[in-house]
């Protein structure tokens, strides 16, 4: 078994807001992240897949194909978008706040079952160099 990791980047806006709370509660818990005009990050996504090396190609997955899948399923949907306003899994009413943890989970769900010949192993999302979230598909 070999693990293989492909990186992709997207730049998005978001804010943190729990619709069940008052404005004061949101500001107290989320602080500056609750600014409803949004703020943004350059996110880095690292997707790790696990699989066996194909005896002919020598690949676990075709990296070109993996790159295209990340582009189609994630980057084209998230990049230069406002996650709360333009990405369905974080839309108002879902109760799904676009925290780094929830973004990693959402990306896992977007990719699950879409990568041929390999098993999705980890979705890692860096919000900044010093903060990142990992999701391994645990429920």
């Amino acid at each position, binding site marked *: 078994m070999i693990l293989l990791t492909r990186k992709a980047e997207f730049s998005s806006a978001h804010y943190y807001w729990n619709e069940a709370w008052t404005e004061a509660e949101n500001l107290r818990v989320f602080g500056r992240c609750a600014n409803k005009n949004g703020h943004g990050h350059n996110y880095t996504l690292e997707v790790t897949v696990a699989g066996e090396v194909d005896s002919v190609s020598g690949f676990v997955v075709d990296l070109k194909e993996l790159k295209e899948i990340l582009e189609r399923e994630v980057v084209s949907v998230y990049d230069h978008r406002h996650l709360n306003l333009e990405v369905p899994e974080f839309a108002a009413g879902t109760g799904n*706040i676009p925290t780094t943890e929830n973004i990693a989970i959402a990306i896992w769900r977007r990719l699950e079952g879409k990568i041929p010949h390999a098993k999705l192993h980890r979705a890692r999302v860096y919000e900044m160099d010093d903060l990142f979230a990992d999701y391994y598909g645990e429920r």
Partner: protein
Amino acid sequence: MAVGVATSTGPKAYLSRRYRVSASHRLHSEAYSAEENLAVYGKCNNPHGHGHNYAVEVTLGGRLNAETGMVCDLGELDEFARIHLIERFDGMNLNTLDEFRDVVPTTENFTAEVYRIFQGFRGALVVRVRIEETGNNSFEIGDEFGRG
């Protein structure tokens, strides 16, 4: 329901935060002779010590709080790290601290100490600590969650 008291019922995820700690140390064991210390530790045995910009990566694991979508309150974690990691070790000579009175302040032992300290964080379970001593060396202790 008061804010923040919801049970953590979401999926299980991991959050990692990196902190910077600059400190000096000298690798030297009283159990060795001067020659043995030099043979084992090489330039790290320099009597005057040397230092590193350590990057301390702390990983917390747990079910997401359904109200916040987070593993833990980052502000609480940063405050814990400020008090128990940064103020304790940043700008210090590790050899002068009680924690390293009886053990050599290798980065292995430093990592074990930081892991022990973060077990005292109540906001979420600290499952791993990884310390980069330089860009070439890193040390980690904790669960190999989800790997392999």
